[in-house]
């Protein structure tokens, strides 16, 4: 029997779709590992996914934040992606992230779980960068809701 590991098809198709989007999008597997983000997300973060590779939640949290409105790191458990993959429900929040050049970007993030016949396979989060004209995140740094 072949021993090659295989990503679930739902993650494969999600990655293919995300690759074609101009909206920053992130993909985690069922264990919360960040397994992909697209070029638009790479531009926002200042680093392409190929440079980062698959990283665990502690790493991507420390690399990019996120931070609430007062600059404090948002607890991992409260991030939309984590809520989506752990609780199996959609989640939304507004917060700041830090790119590799130190710049901070205000974003709105929506995440939803990838549910299959065999359970939750992961989650997708789409980031919507907020314009710097006062149209900041609606919750001003609130945790996922």
């Amino acid at each position, binding site marked *: 029997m072949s021993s090659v*590991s295989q990503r679930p098809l739902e993650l494969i198709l999600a990655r293919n779709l995300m690759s074609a989007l101009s909206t920053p999008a992130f993909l985690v597997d069922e264990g919360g590992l960040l397994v992909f983000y697209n070029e638009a997300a790479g531009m926002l973060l200042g680093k392409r996914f190929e440079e980062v590779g698959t990283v665990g939640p502690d790493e991507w949290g420390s690399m990019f934040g996120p931070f609430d409105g007062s600059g404090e790191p948002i607890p991992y458990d409260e991030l939309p992606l984590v809520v989506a993959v752990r609780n199996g429900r959609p989640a939304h929040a507004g917060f700041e992230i830090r790119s590799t050049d130190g710049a901070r970007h205000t974003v709105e993030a929506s995440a939803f779980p990838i549910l299959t016949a065999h359970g939750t396979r992961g989650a997708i989060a789409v980031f919507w960068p907020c314009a710097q004209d006062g149209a900041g995140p609606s919750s001003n740094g609130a945790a996922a809701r």
Partner: protein
Amino acid sequence: MKVKLWGTRGSVPSPGPETIRYGGNTSCVGVTLSDGSLLALDAGTGIRNLGLSLPDEPTRLHILLTHLHLDHIQGLVFFAPAFRPQTEIVIWGPASPEASLRDRIARYISAPLSPVEVRELPCDVSFRHTPEAEWEIGSARIRAASVAHRGPTLGYRIDDGDSSLAYIPDHEPALGADIETLEEDWISGFALARDASLLIHDGQYADPEYPDHLGWGHSSLSHALAFARRTGAERTVLFHHDPLNSDEQLDRLGEEARERWLASGGAAERLELGVEGAEYEPRPQSSPPTAAVRAI
């Protein structure tokens, strides 16, 4: 393990003088395991002749459906063993959140599409969703995995002793992705086909035909060749021929496939187009995988 192609056509049966060599029946592959257990991979119209080939005696067999498009189940109500009380049939297929496998198949085996209902079949028939983990049938270990096609669709891998068969008849592994550069674990169906003794894979479209069928769930020739090369299958049979392609057109497609396969460093005897009635005895890998073959 012995393998016989009973139907190689995709989409819709296409009988006639122009398809007589490659065949006009839709997808069905018969497998006889080393312990004598019988499997049918898909139940397109090819399963009718498979059924007629079986002796009229108590039989237990398993039908492994990749999905429920009509070209993969149309032969069920013309499968002679299903009308014998002494036959036991286990039908495996993909789960769906919408309805059970039995209920979804019953939409076809019911009025007004069929003169008989599932409950009227004289045989002992049961329906099972394929498990996530591998399972055993007779002397084989079976694995099913979702693959890129429209709707819930599976590919299968059957390991019997040292030989293995991968069956992925409806597959678009390069949809939205570059199959030449994608990491192996991100290629749909890769683990099923990896180093298989025999890979039966979608080869429906010539490259010029593919752009008009993007997202229809099938492979172009380039995608099929790349998938075969990257998975390192010992032998590849291109399958699910487009119903619009005559024998002459398939001859040309096969010739192009062989030329490109050879040009990439592949061995000629390791690639062919599926022909109805063709038989195989998959053997274990006899030489290093074709991972070193150049991009096609």
